[in-house]
């Protein structure tokens, strides 16, 4: 199929791939981070996703992260336009995107530069680079390519030029679009993945398409596999140690959407916004199959109001959004709080403030979620921390919303939204589903807000229930839901709505400590950083450090027992993807330092000197970064 002369003619550079002399040695690894990057629309994402699925089928731990440019079609060959996938493979379960990349397949040198500049590539890592640019008719492109290539080589990267497009031309007319499967074939070879599984994966991926498309993609896959076998002198193997049980491979947004399906909710009202929208895309396709409705409203406010209307009428509904949309919903959320209408609000956080960084990850909306909406507006705030948790948290959120007649805010973020991780296929339980709408008559004498003096709870009256007629209102009201401005009614109602949080808190379990129950340093995290924090803690403990971590899924209310855990450690700090002032900055001191969100919460609630470390780089925090932060923290104290 290929021969050395072809290769030479394509890549006359000094350091190009060469056929292996004799049998290749296979290096056994415990894990590896692979990136496939291209211009937008060249299919690197599909390649990466397929790779993740194939490895998961083999029993490897997998975590995939989408690399998404902000624009739909950024200019070709632009530094900021990298589109693709980052795949971390491991022998064991993988809980996060890991550290710097070990091997990257790049379709041009410019998108590669973007990754180099943001420090995503491991020094000296392997780069498989499309070599066709060297001979580009446009002298500027050719020279840019050569310069970049030379620089990367000089900097110590192991760059292999691969004639991907040229090789693909032998099989398909549009070689530019077929390269992704060629790349997949190469990676399968380099990581000793099962070629047949890869073929099956292609058949699955394109199962809705014409069989000829499957055929041509399989040909390209085989070609890539063979090319790597013939031309590259290295090979890896990541032994699979996981039990191979039925697993689901989806990203966080699909998991959220499946959770909505499984929660028995019937109405999801939304307005398009990145990065939340892909959950609604999937839901729009799947929800109708179980009798649900995705309503794309005219704006975020209408979406929230529509969901409140559906909930009020007896069918607890969900609205799903990201930061800017969440800000717009705040007034309506306050109405649901005031009228005690159950509601699930999902906020897939992105970089803020304002329009911020729509495609980048951040944990910047926690304070808005807890304290947002004017006046005293207590609501439940949960943060999902794994892909699997995205699914189950929605079910829990719906239940809490209806049990306590409260707004439950579920915080996810871009990192979870677009990452994939296999998790055991859930076993359906009828308990997940919402009960049918209660249409029984209201007993005489019962009022719509007969708040229990201890828990603040009251039976919710639902339209259709005889004898329950009343008007809910966002105005201050008494037990009969009559507008009431007297001091007693106002305090009684605000007290009741607040007590419900305490009542929920009494039912929450203390979160488990990861690591040891006491020690030198406790790291507290929330949301998508869980995997990275726990991995860092595990490695530090293996090195003998007495560090542990605590991950919070409920941020409002905070479960009991947290103070006692923190008191067992000499130091406590949070690690978060949001802003906190840097103590080393000249004018920052203890009197003006702004802490990260959870650090602020813990400090104010428990009067414990909780420190924090945070970054707002728009990327998931890496386990190695967390280790460095923990080491510094331990060193400063001792």
């Amino acid at each position, binding site marked *: 199929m290929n021969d050395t002369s072809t290769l030479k003619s394509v890549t006359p550079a000094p350091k190009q791939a060469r056929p292996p002399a004799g049998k290749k040695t296979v290096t056994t690894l415990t894990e590896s981070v692979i990136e496939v990057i291209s211009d937008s629309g060249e299919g690197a994402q599909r390649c990466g996703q397929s790779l993740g*699925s194939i490895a*998961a*089928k083999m*029993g490897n731990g997998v975590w995939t992260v989408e690399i998404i440019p902000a624009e739909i079609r950024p200019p070709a060959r632009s530094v900021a336009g990298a589109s693709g996938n980052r795949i971390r493979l491991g022998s064991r379960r993988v809980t996060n995107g890991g550290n710097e990349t070990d091997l990257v397949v790049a379709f041009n040198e410019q998108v590669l530069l973007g990754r180099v500049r943001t420090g995503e590539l491991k020094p000296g890592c392997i780069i498989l680079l499309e070599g066709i640019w060297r001979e580009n008719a446009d002298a500027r492109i050719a020279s840019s390519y050569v310069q970049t290539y030379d620089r990367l080589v000089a900097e110590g990267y192991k760059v292999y030029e691969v004639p991907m497009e040229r090789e693909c031309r032998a099989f398909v007319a549009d070689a530019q679009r077929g390269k992704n499967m060629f790349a997949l074939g190469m990676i399968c070879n380099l990581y000793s993945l099962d070629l*047949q*599984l890869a*073929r*099956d994966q292609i*058949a*699955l991926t394109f*199962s809705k398409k014409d*069989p000829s498309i*499957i*055929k041509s993609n*399989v*040909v390209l896959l*085989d070609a890539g596999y063979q090319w790597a076998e013939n031309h590259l002198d290295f090979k890896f193997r990541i032994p699979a140690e996981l039990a*191979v049980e*039925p*697993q*689901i*491979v989806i990203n966080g947004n699909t998991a959220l959407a*499946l959770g909505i*399906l*499984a929660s028995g909710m019937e*109405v999801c009202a939304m307005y398009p916004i990145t990065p939340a929208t892909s959950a609604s895309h999937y839901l729009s396709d799947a929800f109708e*199959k*179980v009798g649900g*409705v995705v309503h794309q409203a*005219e*704006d975020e*406010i*209408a979406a929230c*109001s*529509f969901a*409140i*209307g*559906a*909930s*009020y*009428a*007896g*069918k607890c509904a969900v609205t799903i959004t990201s930061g800017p949309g969440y800000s717009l919903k705040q*007034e*309506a959320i306050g109405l649901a709080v005031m009228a005690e209408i159950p509601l699930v609000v999902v906020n897939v956080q992105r970089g803020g403030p304002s329009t911020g960084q729509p495609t980048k990850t951040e944990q910047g909306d926690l304070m808005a979620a807890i304290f947002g909406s004017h006046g005293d507006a207590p609501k439940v705030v949960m943060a999902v921390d794994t892909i699997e948790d995205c699914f189950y948290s929605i079910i829990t959120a719906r239940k809490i919303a209806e049990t306590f007649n409260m707004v439950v805010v579920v915080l996810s973020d871009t990192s979870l939204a677009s990452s994939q991780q*296999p998790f055991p296929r*859930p076993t*359906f339980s*009828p308990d997940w*589903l919402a009960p049918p*709408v209660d249409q029984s008559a209201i007993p005489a004498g019962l009022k719509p807000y007969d708040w229990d003096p201890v828990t603040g709870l009251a039976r919710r009256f639902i*339209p*259709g229930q*005889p004898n*329950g*007629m009343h*008007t*809910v209102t966002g*105005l201050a009201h008494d037990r009969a839901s*009559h507008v009431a401005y007297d001091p007693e009614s106002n305090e009684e109602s605000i007290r009741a709505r607040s007590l419900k949080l305490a009542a929920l808190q009494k039912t929450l379990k203390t979160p488990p400590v990861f690591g040891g129950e006491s020690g030198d340093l406790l790291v507290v995290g929330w949301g998508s950083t869980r995997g990275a924090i726990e991995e860092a803690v595990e490695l530090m403990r293996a090195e003998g450090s007495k560090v542990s971590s605590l991950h919070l899924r409920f941020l409002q209310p905070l479960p009991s027992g947290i103070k006692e855990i923190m008191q067992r450690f000499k130091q406590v700090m949070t690690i978060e993807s949001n802003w906190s002032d840097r103590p080393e900055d000249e004018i920052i001191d203890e009197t003006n330092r702004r802490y990260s969100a959870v650090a602020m919460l813990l400090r104010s609630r428990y009067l414990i000197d909780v420190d924090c470390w945070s970054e707002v780089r728009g990327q998931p925090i890496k386990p190695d970064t967390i280790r460095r932060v923990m080491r510094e923290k331990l060193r400063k104290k001792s």
Partner: protein
Amino acid sequence: MTTAATECMLRMYEEHYELEDYQSGVPRWCSGCGDNAILAAVQRLCRDEKLRPEKTVFVSGIGCSSRFPHYMKTYGFHGIHGRALPIAEGVKMARPDLHVFVNTGDGDCCSIGAAHWIHAIRYNMNITVFLHDNQIYGLTKMQASPTSPRGTKSNTTPRGSYLEALQPLNVTLGVQNVSFVAQAVDWIPEVLYDIVKAAYHHKGLSFVRIVQRCPEWLPHQNEPWMHDPQKILLLNHEQGLRISPAMAKIYKNQLQHDPSNIDRAREIASQSDPMPVGILYRNPEVPCYEDLRRSGKLRTNEYIKAGLEAEFDKFTIDGRKPTRGKPAESLARSV
């Protein structure tokens, strides 16, 4: 209304409601406020149509008119400023079995909630909407509203308002999927009732603009039209309102208008003197959004489970066994 004794007996066995069954509390509107007339007409409608109070929901926003649900002994939702329509849409989508009404003012509907107004017309859900248009902000104490005539002196326009008034009928009639538009005035209760009734019976979004008096802030606004019957243009048609002989005697300025004619409706809507009163447009053929979107299938646990498992199947990988889709081996070998 007189009915035969036997008929009364029959009705007793079915369901019988009095006006009191729909009355709740004492309205706190000003004396002479047009909202009182609208409330009376709507309570009469509920009684005459025997709407079960527990199956009836009035949704409102914020403003004087939005106090309306508090005075109905039905379910009510006094929401937030401008958002009555999306809340009502959510209610209707979740529960098509409920009778859903919306009470909204000119500030609520035409200003802060204007986006929802446009889209509510397009959704065309089976909801009856009353725009209580007094052409002024009342609850916040006299500021110009979008429907205030140019030159209206108010607390925010002490030298008179600067802009031409927005015409709610024109706007509504300009939106795709409009299916029912009528105009009433609070000071002709008989016609108001007939219009409210026709609006209720229309399947789709019925939009009724009710020109109403605000005796507190714009006491003289509607006087020319109130005092001179010739300044009211009554629209009648066998497919629209039928004017009673008593009314016909007072309001002699009448126009035969076929409410299926949208072009003519738009022309009529653009005039304010004489002020058209009646049904401007009606099209029962426009599909309702809730009918387009709801499957109608009973959502049993089994039904949901089956749907969910099918979705799980799509994403399940099961060890080394080939997943769904055609095995690729034979295809590959054939190349």
